[in-house]
């Protein structure tokens, strides 16, 4: 089995799993006042400090959530609502055209249900939002913008955005800037304070922690209306009993991923380069999508001309090689990737793509396994590709 889908989810780190199991054995609600509760609270607050220290944030800026989707929704909708309440003229929301659906659909919801003006920030051929693009949008309507959201790194093609530059422009215009850093943490240096962002999303299961726990780093002075109402456990901006074991495992994973990041990134990028070279050699007309330089170390993304991505995926799956078409499913059907389309690809190229992503336990044998079966799979998928041409 060659698992080449770490951007979807990556195995838990043994230390995180151990920490989870140990904490899950203990009883105690962090909001309870007795000793068991205080013990749970201590574990949560220690975890908060560890996450904050790893990412250049203050502990009070760490809001634990159920993961990336909740954090993105809280940042986009919550900041939009709070900013519009404070200034009714702020009815616009801007995000890049290559965001994850957790941001994209939250923004679209604001457009459809809150009358928000939705501003899409175009990307270049490698999937980058240039500072000029954001500057132009700010020049036109900075006073109307409630919030801006641009991902730190793209989940499909791995392009890393110039976040510090974008955040600086937003700050100069006085508009809160959120970044979805789900794919970036543990892969590239992420420092919340240094980035200048107002809010940052991260999640556990992309860094070796459990699924179902994540955080929103939210600047102290950033107004945000809650999505979830209840006990107000997290700074009154997020309610729900804290998942002590999940939070401890999450913090363990974040801390470890950040600490080992430089060494990890060098190793995995080298392995990725072997993969890319091997795929290019095996399939000479393959198109390598995304940026050559500012790119996540574990990401390789290709279009295979004449193939359907889902056919290739199935053939590789049958040979024990697990990858992704990279695009979201709509009603069970893989849609042509909005990321590839935004980067200027046509429908056929978008449909012909596959994403291979490496992670902390990837080894050369994984790449070898892919390269051993890829040529045969591509040949078959090409024969089947004729199926799409109108008869």
């Amino acid at each position, binding site marked *: 089995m060659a698992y080449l889908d770490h951007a979807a989810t990556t195995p838990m780190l043994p230390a995180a799993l151990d920490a989870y199991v140990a904490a899950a054995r203990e009883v105690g609600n962090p909001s309870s006042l007795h000793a068991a509760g205080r013990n749970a609270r201590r574990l949560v607050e220690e975890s908060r400090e560890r996450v904050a220290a790893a990412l250049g944030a203050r502990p009070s800026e760490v809001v634990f959530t159920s993961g990336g989707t909740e954090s993105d929704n809280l940042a986009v909708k919550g900041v939009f609502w709070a900013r519009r309440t404070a200034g009714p003229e702020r009815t616009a929301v801007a995000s890049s055209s290559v965001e994850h659906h957790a941001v994209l659909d939250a923004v679209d919801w604001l457009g459809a249900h809150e009358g928000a003006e939705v501003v899409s920030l175009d990307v270049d051929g490698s999937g980058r939002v240039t500072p000029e693009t954001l500057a132009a949008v700010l020049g036109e309507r900075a006073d109307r913008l409630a919030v801006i959201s641009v991902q730190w790194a793209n989940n499909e093609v791995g392009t890393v955005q110039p976040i510090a530059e974008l955040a600086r422009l937003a700050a100069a215009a006085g508009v809160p800037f959120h970044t979805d850093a789900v794919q970036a943490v543990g892969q590239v240096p992420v420092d919340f304070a240094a980035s200048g962002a107002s809010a940052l999303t991260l999640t556990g299961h992309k860094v070796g922690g459990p699924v179902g726990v994540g955080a929103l780093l939210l600047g102290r002075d950033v107004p945000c209306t809650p999505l979830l109402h209840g006990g107000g456990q997290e700074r009154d901006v997020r309610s729900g009993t804290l998942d002590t074991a999940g939070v401890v495992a999450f913090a363990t994973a974040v801390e470890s991923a950040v600490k080992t990041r430089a060494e990890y990134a060098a190793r995995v990028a080298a392995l990725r380069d072997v993969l890319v070279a091997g795929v290019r050699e095996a399939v000479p007309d393959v198109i390598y999508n995304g940026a050559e330089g500012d790119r996540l170390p574990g990401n390789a993304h290709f279009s295979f001309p004449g193939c359907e991505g889902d056919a290739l995926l199935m053939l590789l*799956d049958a040979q024990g090689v697990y990858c992704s078409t990279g695009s979201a499913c709509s009603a*069970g059907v*893989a849609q042509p990737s909005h990321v590839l389309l935004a980067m200027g690809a046509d429908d056929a190229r978008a449909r012909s793509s596959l994403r291979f992503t490496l992670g902390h336990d990837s080894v050369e044998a994984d790449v070898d396994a892919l390269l051993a079966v890829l040529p045969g799979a591509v040949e*078959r998928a090409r*024969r*089947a590709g004729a199926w799409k041409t109108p008869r």
Partner: protein
Amino acid sequence: MSGGVDSAVAAARAREAGHDVTGVHLALSRNPQTFRTGARGCCTLEDSRDARRAADVIGIPFYVWDMAEEFHASVVDDFVGEYAAGRTPNPCLRCNEKIKFEAVLDRAIALGFDAVVTGHHARLGADGLLRRSVDLAKDQSYVLAVLTREQLDRAMFPLGDWTKERVRAEAASRGLAVADKPDSHDICFIADGDTRGFLESRLGSAPGDIVDGRTGETLGTHNGAYGFTVGQRKGLDLRVPAADGRPRYVLSITPVTNTVTVGPREDLEVDTVTATRPIQMNFSEMSDIQVQLRAHGDVVDADVSISDGLVTARLKSPARGVAAGQAIVAYQPDPDGDIVLGSATIAAGTRASAHA
């Protein structure tokens, strides 16, 4: 795997026969928000989830294949076009011919598979002959008769020797949750079951006359001849009652003049059926065979001849409600299950001794 009980059990039986089986669910809607969320048919999201769960339980890989474009071009557009031309299409038959055993089969073969397995109730044995299911009430050989020899050579129907009841019992004993799921009967791409409304939204309103087949008298008007099918009695909305007070039926539809012709029940009777586009009819003359003229329709004894691609069936007893566009399927009666001899597309039904 539609998400129904038949394809789930067919997959399980194929696997048990030693084949390397992969489950495929077809996504057939261009816009995933339209009929995939409908309440009926075989292509809702819930059906897709049911199919996936069945594949899990059987222990086979499962994928959704997007066949929306092919389905729209080959089945939905054809359905609308056939009605516009005054014929009555059978979309299930068309889907077997163009989607399941053409688009899916071609893709599967290219990807390295050997055959397409479906949960149709029909027998296809080692002799290569297509026969009716042992469960005559559920027999689907009619909608499979459109398949060519090459298509049948790549098809497997593991359920033909089982009754539907046994299929359901088998599903239950295997722990398949779809065991008691109701059968789908409706046209899957018309979620609300309103065929006339579906056609009207695509073909627009086209008012024309309803005329009496015997006298030529105009009896009323209609909003689109496509809303009618030969043999139809309801929905004519005629203001002038018949002289004898008996109900009137649609006898024919003439698109050129946009006319719907009606008459008494006996005028629906035909004793000769002509058909085009014969498939698998490898004979020039067959006497004392049987023909079936619509899905779940009666079976009629007939002599069938073929010349220059034109099929003529002389019926030994008259048939009613013979609609152009439907299939005529020829069967050779056989104690081991009636054998499909071939099919063709009905062009017209006529009566040698027309009423005065």
